[in-house]
């Protein structure tokens, strides 16, 4: 029988047994709900796109409504203006939330009048109302002083607002992608890598491993486990990402940048590589422990390296994506899965660097499988206490 089939049988067993467990189904549902909820709920609560309503108490000075509309459109605020009969009617409208603010200016513009809110003044509306009233009164004064109306209109032209290096939606999306990507890789390593770890220990504890290893090579067993649990992890990641992107688009929180497909592919590739690297290490370290309680001890070196790599990525690399730390970390297998997608999200990595990083990481995974499988074989049948790495290495061999 081919080794491929053997590996696949192991993987298939993991997928079926774990995939139909309630825990897995619930965790997929839960994360999906969480992601979709985190987009939908705020948009329901806060993203109130309805135009603000300003009530003006009649009789109004001529030009007030148009002044309000023009000023509002300059600051990007949609408003609707309604006219109210009297101060009492205005009071009632404010009380019943029919209007957001009430503007009361004498028709002859003899005073600036009042802008009234029900509770907390809305700074933007207050600004719009004040600017409109002040402009109207100035205009009135100037017209009385026989200023050329055309010149007056020209003088009220707003300046061109511009920035040297405008931050766009794309930049925001990139930053978000980069951070979410690093977190997902970390979560992938910790949740699915630890599933591999506990799976190995469970097989050892239930002693089934001796029956399995009488037909399956240790390396193939480890590989099948990593593959099967990895496929489940990827399914969960895909559900997660699709749900997140879908929810983001539907609720219009931000526009997806054109680089989205590339970023998603990069994320997927490094999720797979990072998971494969760390879960292999966790898998063979798991073989050294004989009980689940020892698992965290056995895995400490690996989790330390993962955490350090993550922090290097989110602090050093985001700070300076082309700096020396970022470049070195790109080519170190433990940190590459965090650093490369980050740098790619910032468009701060050469394609050749990505290729080299992939090759180096794949080579490291392969080496880890070779070394790991031997340690695994040597340790996995020692069921009493913790096995020393050196003893496991010595007593094993395919």
């Amino acid at each position: 029988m081919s080794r491929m089939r053997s590996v696949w049988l192991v993987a298939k067993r993991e997928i079926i047994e774990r995939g139909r467990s309630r825990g897995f189904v619930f965790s997929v549902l839960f994360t999906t709900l969480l992601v979709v909820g985190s987009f939908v709920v705020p948009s329901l609560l806060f993203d109130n796109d309805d135009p603000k309503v300003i009530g003006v108490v009649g009789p109004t000075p001529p030009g007030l409504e148009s002044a309000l509309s023009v000023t509002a459109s300059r600051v990007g605020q949609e408003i609707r203006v309604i006219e109210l009969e009297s101060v009492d009617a205005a009071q009632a409208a404010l009380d019943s939330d029919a209007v957001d603010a009430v503007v009361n200016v004498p028709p002859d513009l003899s005073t600036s009048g009042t802008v009234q809110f029900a509770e907390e003044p809305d700074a933007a509306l207050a600004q719009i109302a004040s600017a409109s009233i002040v402009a109207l009164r100035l205009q009135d004064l100037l017209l009385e002083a026989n200023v050329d109306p055309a010149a007056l209109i020209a003088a009220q032209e707003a300046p061109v607002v511009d920035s040297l290096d405008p931050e766009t939606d794309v930049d925001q999306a990139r930053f978000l992608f980069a951070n979410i990507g690093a977190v997902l890789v970390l979560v992938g390593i910790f949740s699915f890598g630890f599933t591999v770890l506990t799976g190995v220990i469970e097989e050892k504890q239930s002693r089934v491993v001796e029956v399995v290893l009488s037909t399956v090579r240790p390396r193939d067993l480890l590989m099948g486990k990593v593959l099967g649990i990895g496929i489940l992890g990827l399914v969960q990641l895909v559900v997660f990402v699709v749900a997140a992107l879908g929810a983001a688009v539907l609720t219009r929180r931000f526009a997806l940048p054109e680089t989205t497909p590339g970023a998603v592919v990069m994320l997927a590739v490094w999720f797979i590589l990072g998971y494969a690297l760390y879960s292999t290490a966790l898998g063979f370290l798991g073989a050294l422990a004989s009980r689940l309680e020892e698992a965290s001890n056995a895995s400490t070196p690996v989790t330390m390296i993962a955490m350090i790599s993550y922090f290097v990525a989110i602090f050093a690399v985001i700070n300076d994506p082309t700096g020396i730390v970022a470049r070195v970390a790109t080519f170190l297998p433990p940190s590459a899965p965090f650093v490369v997608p980050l740098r790619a999200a910032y468009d701060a990595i050469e394609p050749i660097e990505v290729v080299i990083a992939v090759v180096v990481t794949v080579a490291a995974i392969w080496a880890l499988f070779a070394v790991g499988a031997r340690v695994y074989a040597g340790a996995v049948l020692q069921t009493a206490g913790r096995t020393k790495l050196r003893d496991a290495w010595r007593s094993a061999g395919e």
Partner: protein
Amino acid sequence: MLEIDDLAKRYGSVVALDGASFSARPGRIVGFLGPNGSGKTTTMRCIFGLVRPDRGAVRWNDRPIDRETRLRFGYMPEQRGLYPRMRVGEQVSYFAQQHGLPSREADAAGRRWLERMGLGDREKSKLEELSHGNQQRVQLTVALAHDPELLVLDEPFSGLDPLGTATMTEVLQDRAANGVGVVFSSHQLDLVEDVCEDVVIIARGRVVAAGAIDELKARSGRRHLEVEVVGSDGSWLDGDGSLTVLERVGDRVKLLVRDDVDLDQLLARAQGAGEVRTFAYQPPKLSELFMEAVTPVPSPATETTLVEATS
């Protein structure tokens, strides 16, 4: 044929195997006997590549055993274990597939064997829902479902009730009748005497006796003699250095004699002493052969016999 050739294995200062050699033929049931820690489990693990010996080789049909060969073997380790939460039917099928059976055949074989083990209705149950005895049956089914050419079972009878013992015996004999080589270890020597044709006795990592049980008995220098003489005070036995009295109950005496004893002369002496009701001459039991073989310092005479048996 399975050949174990000069296997040696040390764990630090502990010698697990020290040049063990024996063979097992197709269609024969070999009882693999030895005190605890004598190297039985290590030998079995060597057969399945779970332990790499420091020296020696394991061969099947004159060729070193590789993974492909092992797929045609069935193994039941001493430390039983299967996936606790996996369904019984899927579990048996999974292991049969790992032994190379296509999935549909593996499913069918699993069903057939579970039926035969009396577990046909438990196919969909999780293993952990089964009783201890039934879990043992599943473990045996896992070793059998791919129709192996060689069965290696480490203590298959331990923990079985009489019903389970009967099933196990029947299955092993049936497999052997179908040309399968069967090697199993056990401490229940009376059972081994009933089930096996051949035995291998291992002590301190070396094989100290091997061969057909009948031949080993015949080759042993000792015989049992049970005599019942009515009307004698037993003095007819006195002064004969060639026999040892093991037990005396009333008129009945159990004796240990050398195999070259002159039975006619002994019978005549007994008849002279009184009325002979019983005069039974028997080879030693397997348990005696075992004790003799594993005792640390065997007498020179027995050692010669046993070394011959080993070769």
